[in-house]
């Protein structure tokens, strides 16, 4: 056994490339996050209110799509090759999907960035939630499509590698890391179908002027079909790290391989038919459909609670192996000095808080209290912004040495970095939640209104703003420390005494798991049936009421009109017939 870069040098290159793409997005997105909190809270304002939405779009797309998905394709490549103990089948194909993802990112970023330049007639300030009637330049939709196709091909690459392995090992169980990758990708194929349909059938042709208008509620519903499910595309790799890395770093073994498989199967079948819970206030969807989706959403608590139990049990096992004793005394024996452990453990702790605020969001009646308020922003900064981002950053401290062959530059800086993220997010997210309860809106550049003040039951809005600005600043410092550490590690010297490329062994192994758990066709079929049950009637009802292409799809800004003028000018000039 040796480091990953020695076992799979070619694959380590692709993982490195994916990580750097991810980290660039993190750096730029993090900086834009700081700009936003300072603008919103009126601490520093150096741009117009209109530019805020361009910043917000880039922040959302870079962090929610680029940072997370580039990182997860890196660790999925590691998981497949390590657990199957074989390289990918065709590295040209592997570089193809990485290239598509990169080209897609650049194409989507160009119109967003052009939004800052008034003289360029191109923009995509449509936010991460890019449904109609907000309209982006066609390049934005094209870029997103190419990016998603890249992820689909990545999944095909991993499935192909597994199928070849399976032919050679017909009687063996799917190794747990591979099982996690495959179930996640099956779920991703199913859930990203919504956004693919939305873009290819409606938004892209609409932005090109082929359709005059689209059904805004239909594109919204298709977006949220993907938009909530994508949360699990970020979370499942984080869960994978908690299952595979945390027990080993704690000094023990994974408590139960079968339970981990059950969790990933549950995510595969339950994660997609939930998106309408983002639309509780949409008048075009009947309350009954919303109630069904609420029930589906609450079922999703089950795999998260199972994970909490399994991961904490594994950590306790590790701590007791290290000499920990007592009901709670074992906590002291955990390796808190290790930033990989501490980062992931704190990410898990914050995810528990995110689960509680998520239950508020998911409840149909109480959701009305916080819908479209700053509360929701506080919530997803605990989920994707901490459970996922902090886990990925902490995991990087293990992965970067593994894929570069170099020692982590500074372990103490890494520990401070993860703690700073935890503290910064505590300040920022807490204040966002509380501001949401006062009715402070989300997606708003300057939520200060003449002749009106939000009434705080405790403290004041100014205190909450100060807390948000402080938290956002600490988070940015944390990002800078993280990037400095990984860059300094990458430019360091190669060493030979790196830890072996391993993941956690299990107390209860794959042999204890019922064979049916590995029946991916069965679970995919159930997932498809649940999606059909949850979405057929709402979609038919939306189309029945408004038609496939309307109403409510009048475009803003009128990109289509400008394109029409270009075509007319080209025809007049004789460039095209």
């Amino acid at each position, binding site marked *: 056994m040796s480091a990953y870069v020695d076992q799979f040098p070619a694959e380590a290159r692709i993982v490195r490339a994916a990580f750097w793409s991810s980290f660039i997005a993190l750096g730029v997105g993090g900086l834009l996050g700081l700009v936003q909190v300072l603008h919103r809270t009126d601490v520093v304002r150096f741009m117009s209110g209109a530019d805020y939405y361009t910043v917000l779009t880039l922040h959302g797309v870079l962090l929610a799509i680029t940072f997370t998905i580039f990182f997860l394709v890196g660790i999925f490549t590691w998981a497949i090759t390590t657990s199957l103990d074989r390289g990918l089948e065709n590295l040209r194909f592997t570089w193809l999907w990485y290239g598509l993802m990169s080209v897609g990112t650049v194409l989507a970023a160009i119109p967003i960035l052009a939004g800052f330049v008034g003289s360029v007639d191109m923009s995509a300030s449509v936010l991460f939630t890019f449904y109609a009637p907000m309209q982006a330049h066609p390049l934005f939709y094209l870029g997103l499509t190419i990016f998603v196709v890249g992820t689909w091909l990545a999944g095909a690459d991993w499935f192909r590698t597994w199928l070849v392995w399976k032919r050679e090992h017909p009687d063996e169980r799917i190794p747990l890391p591979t099982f996690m990758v495959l179930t996640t990708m099956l779920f991703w194929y199913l859930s990203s179908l919504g956004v693919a349909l939305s873009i290819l059938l409606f938004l892209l042709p609409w932005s090109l002027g082929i359709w005059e208008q689209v059904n805004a509620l239909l594109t919204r519903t298709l977006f949220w079909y993907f938009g909530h499910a994508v949360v699990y595309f970020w979370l499942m790799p984080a869960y994978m790290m908690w299952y595979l890395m945390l027990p080993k770093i704690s000094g023990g073994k994974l408590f139960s391989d079968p339970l981990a498989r059950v969790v990933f199967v549950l995510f595969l079948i339950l994660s997609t038919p939930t998106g309408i819970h983002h639309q509780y206030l949409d008048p075009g969807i009947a309350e009954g459909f919303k109630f069904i989706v609420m029930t589906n959403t609450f079922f999703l608590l089950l795999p998260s609670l199972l994970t909490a139990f399994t991961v904490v049990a594994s950590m306790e096992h590790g701590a007791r192996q290290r000499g920990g004793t007592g009901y709670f005394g074992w906590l002291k024996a955990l390796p*808190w000095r290790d930033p990989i452990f501490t980062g992931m453990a704190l990410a898990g702790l914050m995810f528990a808080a995110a689960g509680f605020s998520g239950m508020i969001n998911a409840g149909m009646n109480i959701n009305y209290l916080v819908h479209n308020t700053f509360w929701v922003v506080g919530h997803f900064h605990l989920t994707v912004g901490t459970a996922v981002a902090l886990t990925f950053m902490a995991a990087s401290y293990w992965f970067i040495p593994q894929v570069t062959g170099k020692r982590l530059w500074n372990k103490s800086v890494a*520990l401070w970095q993860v703690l700073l993220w935890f503290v910064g997010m505590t300040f920022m997210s807490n204040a966002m939640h509380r501001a949401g309860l006062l009715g402070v809106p989300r997606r708003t550049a300057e939520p200060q209104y003449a002749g009106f003040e939000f009434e705080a039951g405790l403290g004041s809005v100014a205190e909450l703003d100060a807390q948000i600005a402080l938290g956002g600043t600490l988070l940015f410092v944390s990002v800078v420390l993280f990037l400095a550490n990984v860059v300094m590690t990458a430019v360091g010297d190669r060493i030979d005494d790196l830890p072996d490329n391993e993941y956690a062994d299990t107390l209860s192994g794959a042999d204890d798991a019922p064979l049916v758990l590995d029946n991916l066709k069965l679970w995919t079929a159930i997932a498809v049936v649940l999606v059909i049950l949850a979405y057929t009637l709402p979609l038919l009802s939306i189309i029945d009421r408004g038609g496939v292409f309307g109403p409510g799809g009048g475009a803003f800004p009128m990109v289509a009109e400008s394109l029409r003028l270009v075509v007319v000018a080209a025809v007049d000039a004789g460039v095209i017939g």
Partner: protein
Amino acid sequence: MRISRAGLLVVIAIMIPILVELRTVLAYFSVSISVMETVLIGALAVGALVLWAVFPSTDTNRPNGE
């Protein structure tokens, strides 16, 4: 030390959300404290924790997270 320096840092970090929420919790019991009072209570709590942590431990065989 009773716990490792890293362990101490982690405990201080975990105290922060508790301190941040303290005002809200106390308000439920009609106890209002200002931001400055919260900061003062936090400083005292962290100070007490550090004092406890640096006090020599009687049991040197116990793991402390290092």
